[in-house]
């Protein structure tokens, strides 16, 4: 790619980043002068996953389920409350700034908001070469050459070196953010909703760019997004989060064609497809919203919205395990999993009381 020599690419498939029992609890403080800790938001509460060299692991789930917090833990922008984080075999869970320095260059982040994440007072050249400068790499002349190269890689005109962020459109600004993330030749990019602030026609430009980087430079991605179709397009493996936990993880085919967790089924069923003939999918309509992570339900966290919940679900937390008949690496946390198909089997699941009343169906059971 554009004559950029990639150094010491880790062999594809080798574990690059491993999270084990990773957790982040934010204290909730109350009181006027003397703040008292009255509880904790369990933003991320014990997640296990591995990102292999060169692969893209997608992270999906609804607002507040802990996706961004997970991303910020992985890049060590946040200090984990519990658990272990390993990068290429090295424990970085509580590594100091100094210990982290070499790793920091290899893990980069791309943010959702291409407007807020770029300093408006610095030129595009300064922004993209910033990480090289901070690390004291290359001479000023070589830095500028490299920066122009990076601009070209992400599809910007190298002539734009001296322009300011406000002179660019949203999609172009996101490219600037990508160029900056590439400057230190990262091995892993954590992309937190990298396209959701962009217009539909522009989203595809940025998705294609990231995909090209993944393929041609062998960069691994932790790709965070709430759009299930974008994640499917971009990620070989996908983890579904709910209230701070991973409730199902597996390769693309497992999650999108043979999901087992009721929540994964509900999510997929809710995605509207731009095809008037898109029938043949099961219809599941949940009731209400996601409960507060301040006080998550006992046992299975999905049980307050789950139509299959039984007593056991309130008392026993279901472990994330491989179920009978599932593919290797496909793990599900549910006591009473769904059939591994998303096809319509003739009966809708409509839990929303208003919908059930209007449609003359009874909700399958009283909401807990």
């Amino acid at each position, binding site marked *: 790619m554009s004559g950029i020599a990639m150094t010491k690419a880790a062999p594809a498939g080798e574990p690059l980043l491993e999270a084990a029992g990773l957790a982040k609890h934010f204290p909730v403080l109350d009181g006027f002068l003397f703040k008292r800790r009255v509880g904790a938001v369990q933003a991320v509460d014990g997640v296990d996953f591995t990102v292999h060299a060169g692969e893209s692991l997608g992270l999906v789930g609804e607002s507040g389920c802990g996706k961004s917090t997970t991303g910020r833990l992985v890049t060590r922008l946040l200090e984990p409350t519990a658990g272990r984080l390993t990068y290429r075999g090295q424990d970085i869970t509580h590594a100091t700034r100094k210990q982290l320095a070499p790793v920091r260059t290899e893990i980069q982040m791309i943010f959702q908001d291409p407007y807020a994440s770029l300093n408006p007072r610095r030129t595009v050249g300064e922004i993209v070469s910033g990480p090289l400068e901070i690390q004291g790499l290359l001479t000023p002349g070589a830095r500028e050459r490299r920066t122009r190269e990076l601009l070209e890689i992400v599809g910007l005109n190298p002539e734009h070196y001296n322009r300011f962020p406000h002179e660019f459109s949203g999609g172009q600004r996101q490219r600037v953010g990508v160029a900056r993330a590439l400057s230190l030749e990262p091995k892993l990019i954590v992309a937190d909703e990298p396209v959701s602030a962009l217009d539909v026609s522009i989203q595809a430009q940025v998705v294609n760019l990231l995909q090209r980087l993944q393929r041609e430079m062998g960069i691994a991605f932790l790709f965070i997004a709430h759009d299930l179709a974008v994640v499917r397009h971009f990620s070989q493996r996908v983890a579904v989060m709910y209230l701070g936990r991973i409730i199902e993880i597996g390769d693309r085919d497992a999650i999108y064609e043979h999901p087992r967790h009721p929540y994964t089924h509900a999510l997929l069923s809710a995605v509207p497809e731009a095809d008037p003939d898109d029938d043949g999918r099961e219809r599941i*309509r949940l009731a209400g919203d996601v409960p507060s992570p301040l006080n998550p339900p006992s046992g299975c966290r999905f049980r307050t919205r789950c139509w299959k919940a039984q007593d056991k679900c309130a008392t026993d937390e279901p472990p994330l395990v491989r179920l009978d008949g599932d593919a290797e690496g496909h793990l599900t946390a549910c006591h009473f999993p769904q059939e591994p198909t998303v096809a319509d089997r003739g009966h809708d699941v409509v839990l929303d009381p208003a919908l059930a009343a209007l449609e003359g169906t009874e909700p399958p059971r009283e909401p807990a």
Partner: protein
Amino acid sequence: MTTVTTPQPRPEPPAPRGTGDPFLSVRDLRVRFATEDGEVRAVDGLSFDLERGRTLGIVGESGSGKSVTNLAVLGLHDPRGTTVSGRVTLDGQELLGAPRKRLEKLRGAKMSMIFQDSLTALSPYYTVGRQIAEPYRKHTGASRHRARQRAVEMLGRVGIPQPQRRVDDFPHQFSGGMRQRAMIALALVCDPQLLIADEPTTALDVTVQAQILDLLKDLQRQTGTSIVFVTHDLGVVADVCDDVLVMYAGRCVETGTVRDILKTPEHPYSWGLLSSIPRLKAPVDVPLRPIPGSPPSLLDPPPGCPFHPRCAFRDEVAGDRCATERPQLLLTGARGSACHLDGDRKRAIFADRIRPALGRRPEAASPAAAGPEGPDADRTAEPEADRTVADEPAAEPEADQGEGNR
């Protein structure tokens, strides 16, 4: 080729089309803003009709003029610095230039709206129940007690649990999804005949969006309300709309039924939108096909066709007309597009170059699915286009596998 223009065998919902006058009619609407940098032509000659009980989707990227159009219909533009011209009639009554008092009376009663951001639309200072009951009292003259009952009833209808109790909550005590439901309750409390919903689910999670969209559809079935539904999401369009208007740079570039727009679109911009979105059932190993460039500035829109700087097909139009001459929206009935490419050429390009890459399930394109009237529907078909359609299933092995997995 024939299948491209033939309605699919599945019957259209039996909504009346072309019967009598449209309920809402917009003609040559223009909205301009005077700004420091110059005049912004936010809406530039827009016309559309909406019939009773139907849903018209307005799609387009941000800044294409969707919200400005709706604010003009509702008479909510600040007259200072804004010039609005054209005609907007609701049930035969002219709205543009109507006295403020009359518009106020219509808003909330005969027509109402739901916005994207329910936090700014609901006042933080009054209870949810009061905000629903007040307009009801104002427009129907009901007693305070009756209006409160009505608020409870509406909250229950839109699925707020324990409405008797929650009616006295303030908006911040509701979750995002509940606030959007409360907005729907507020919008529907006076049984409006026209509902304008501007990106009502864009800020919501996908499972909550699905609940709200179904709720709107079910309520519409019950009440017969006409809906203008603004969105940038073609999936949402497929889910809720009967008819669609595609906007670009303040103009309508294509309009038709939801099937027309999603199955046999004719405008290069519509092709671009469809080709650039990832789908749950599309092959994953091919890159998406983005629209190059970005939307134009409305301060200084491109001459000719506003889409020409981004269009891959302008070379197919002789004499660089795309850059010089504004294409008119040519309608046949309620179907049409604004593009200089001639009809056969558009259909051929779509069949040969656009549709094969959409990764749709093949049965929609197979000759058998064309239905009995298929072969007669379009005799202008070019022979090579015919072959393309026949070849299509073979060209889409991934889609085939997707079927096999189910």
